[in-house]
């Protein structure tokens, strides 16, 4: 709870700072504040008594509304790190709308609040609050370029579909409450599955469907490509990294705690996983717009993450999912930072904009190459280890066929990731050498260095949860 208060407070400070004409200080203060909260979360993870400040929040965490276990704290740390990157990218991205900067930053912070509430809830109403805060922030960000008809379309589409999904989630929560008489996750988890009425399972399935929509898993993915393409690039980066992983992590938490007694439930998730990987990859092969391509690739990565739902040992599965999410989102941030710097003033993100990037902006080209290699799962980049840990876990459960599907998809993935790499290195540039905005290159390089760092030493991430 203290984390939530700190971050929401930071958001309000942003809004107030604008009133007091401190616009230049907003981003530095926010990033510093986020890093401070990150350090705080880190201290909580590693200390034996998580209530560091002695405020009593963790003894009775607001009537069991939030729970700060290692899973929640680790993911919170990841979300805070991602938001720090996204906020750092903001001033350069919104340089034509300086007056709105505080709004954009504050909305990102509220979005982060929602994401953390979604992962550290121990009460279903808290979960719903979290997902609504996250979604509403995203609706606003998607439509935040009001003069662009595509952005309007994206915002509207996302809002309509998202509101519908929220409705399904809410209905699911209501059914679960009807079946158990409680919102409290611990109480629900302790109940005997055999005695619960059948609508408990229906409620769980509806929750799952609602979150599958948020993570854009096939067949609930139809909104994603259009919204990703239409939204401003920074919002797309937010959606495909932070929002996707937040929804995925809370879906994992929900399913493992609600633990429905439902034959075929896991098989269905597996089918969704395979479909997401395959369709996401096949569609990505055909794209010429890089944002759209990364969107489809995100769908396939959601499919990979869904593999984490097969497990024998919960802690093991949690850390594998966390590692994959960490690797994927950092590669995503690095890739988007490069996309922003290349396509920032071009008005489109078509692949030809990347022609000859290896010559004109060698550092950015190298970063994007590394990010794509990580997503493709080439070793030493952490994406490889993410995949390997998941394969190991799925084989541990004895599902060889799933792994074979995942491997075939990795091969397809190389096809489109390398399309971009080839464009950067072996095509001639159409433009003069341009200077890269400083923050873009800093964010891109830091993100990719962390990505490679956790690849060289995966224990760093794995031991956060185990």
């Amino acid at each position, binding site marked *: 709870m203290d984390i939530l208060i700190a971050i929401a407070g930071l958001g309000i400070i942003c809004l107030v700072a604008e009133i007091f004409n401190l616009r230049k200080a907003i981003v530095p203060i926010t990033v510093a504040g986020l890093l401070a909260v990150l350090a705080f979360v880190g201290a909580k993870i590693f200390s034996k008594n998580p209530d560091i400040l002695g405020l009593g929040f963790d003894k009775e965490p607001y009537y069991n509304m939030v729970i700060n276990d290692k899973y929640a704290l680790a993911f919170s740390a990841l979300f805070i790190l991602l938001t720090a990157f996204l906020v750092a990218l903001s001033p350069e991205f919104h340089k034509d709308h300086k007056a709105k900067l505080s709004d954009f930053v504050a909305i990102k912070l509220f979005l982060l609040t929602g994401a953390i509430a979604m992962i550290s809830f121990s009460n279903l109403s808290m979960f719903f609050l979290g997902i609504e805060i996250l979604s509403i922030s995203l609706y606003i960000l998607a439509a935040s370029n009001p003069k662009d008809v595509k952005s309007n379309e994206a915002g509207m589409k996302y809002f309509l579909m998202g509101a519908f999904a929220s409705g399904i989630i809410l209905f699911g929560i209501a059914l679960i409450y009807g079946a158990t008489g409680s919102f409290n996750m611990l109480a629900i988890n302790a109940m005997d599955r055999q005695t619960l009425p059948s609508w408990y399972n229906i409620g769980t399935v509806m929750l799952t469907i609602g979150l599958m929509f948020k993570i854009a898993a096939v067949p609930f993915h139809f909104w994603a490509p259009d919204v990703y393409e239409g939204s401003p690039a920074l919002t797309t980066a937010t959606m495909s990294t932070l929002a996707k992983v937040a929804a995925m992590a809370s879906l994992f938490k929900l399913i493992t705690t609600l633990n429905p007694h439902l034959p075929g439930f896991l098989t269905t998730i597996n089918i969704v996983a395979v479909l997401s990987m395959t369709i996401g990859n096949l569609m990505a092969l055909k794209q010429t717009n890089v944002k759209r391509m990364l969107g489809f690739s995100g769908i396939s990565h959601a499919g990979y993450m869904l593999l984490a739902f097969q497990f024998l040992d919960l802690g*093991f599965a949690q850390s594998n999912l966390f590692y994959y999410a960490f690797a994927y989102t950092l590669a995503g941030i690095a890739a988007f930072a490069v996309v922003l710097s290349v396509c920032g003033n071009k008005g489109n993100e078509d692949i030809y904009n990347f022609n000859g990037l290896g010559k004109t902006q060698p550092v950015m080209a190298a970063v994007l190459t590394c990010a794509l*290699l990580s997503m493709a799962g*080439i*070793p*030493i980049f952490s994406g*490889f280890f993410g995949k*390997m*840990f998941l*394969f*190991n876990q799925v*084989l*541990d459960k004895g599902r*060889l066929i799933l*792994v*074979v599907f995942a*491997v075939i998809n*990795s*091969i397809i993935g*190389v*096809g489109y990731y*390398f399309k971009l790499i*080839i464009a950067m*290195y*072996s095509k001639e540039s159409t433009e003069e050498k341009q200077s890269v905005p400083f923050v873009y290159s800093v964010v891109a390089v830091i993100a990719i260095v962390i990505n490679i760092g956790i690849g060289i030493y*995966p*224990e760093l991430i*794995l*031991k956060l949860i*185990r």
Partner: protein
Amino acid sequence: MDVSFILIILLFGAGATYFVGDKWASKAALIFSFAAFAASAYITYLFSTGHKVNSVHLWIHNPTVLFALQADGLSLAMTLLTTLLTPIIVFTSFGNLFPKTRSFYALILFMAFAMVGTFLAVDGLLYYIFWELSLIPIYFIALLWGSGDAKERKKAVVKFFIYTFAGSLFMLVAFVYLYQKRHSFLNVHLYSAILTKNEQVWIFFAFFLAYAIKIPIIPFHTWQANVYQKAPAAGTMLLSGIMLKMALYSIIRWQLPIAPYAAIQYKYILIGLCVAGVIYGSVLALKQNNIKKLLAYSSLAHVGLIAAGTYTLTIDGLRGAVLQMVAHGFGIVGLFFAAEIIERRFGTQEISEMGGIRVQSPKFTSMFMILVLASVALPGTFNFVGEFELLYSLAQANIWLAVIGGTTIILGAFYMLRMFQYVMLGETNAKVFKDVTFNEGLALVLILAVLLFFGIYPKPIVDFITPELEKTLVFINRFN
């Protein structure tokens, strides 16, 4: 000092080469690659005098992955091959002017790093990581510095990458599957994993896919000739001289001891495929007019024979394979370098446009002649020793296989000597052939020295590799 020292030198060298800038990059690369050779020679000395040179550290807890590098006769022989060929390959590139010089040389060193790692790693996952890492530098070397039409080259290189990547992913699945049995990736643990016959067959073919693509064994060879032709000379040398040996080495180190039952079961089919590759490569080599393509197909024939030798599961087959790997490594690098020397002067790879070199440069002609003769395994060259053992092992499996495999020598003599005739002899071409420079000559002499020395006196290397191969053979034959 342990074996990880070699890797550190190469990795550090790659970084240093990149940062010293374009002007000094080639020299830095030469110094570091030679330092790596010196280090591996010293470690070989330490190893043979009984010192402990293995390097084992725990890397990841769960799943348990060890950073385990092991020096033995087999891995050190391959490491020495790599670290001796790398400075030679760097040295041969001195005559070429590349754009982005520092990246080029840094990538070569990085590639050597990955390949040495592949040879030394005994933890399956670590081995897999090095195996895949070696793919990235060669991809960029072939893509960025290759010759010919950019579009064609891209197609060839991407095909190569996707083929090899696809093959190795199935190997990864096999490794992870094996991990479930023993909860370890260490090779000796994997050897003793208890597998049903069915499991062995699947795992065997998962490995086979990765190796058959990289070696290449027909029908997985279609990427090869195009990439060899389009890559820059240094890239072709790395690919043919060292990289495909990674796969041959891996057959002995990983595939056979892990799934020996399947190896015995499918022995004749596998040998048949490999020998078919020998004939196929030789016949295609006969028809080539492009010198690099001709050498690529001759390479296909030679490595087919090596792979056939490993699958005979006899000590002669394994030993012959290792000897021939080293011999072929030096021989093919020498031949590709000779082709490069000619291309530098004539600006063509077409055999029909060459000729008349003998008159202008007798020195180069005689060195080229020795390389050609070594390639057709004339007694007295190192290739003869290896090829003889390989054919002998094939004869143990089935005499007719040896007869068919032996055509590699006959056909080889035919196309190599014919190539020699067209390239070196004949009318003096209108183009002038400048005599080889000192640098070029030095590189060729080094290669020839190795080929001739071990051709006459192969005992040191035979004694060096045999104990480890016998140990491996015990694992392979545990089902007999």
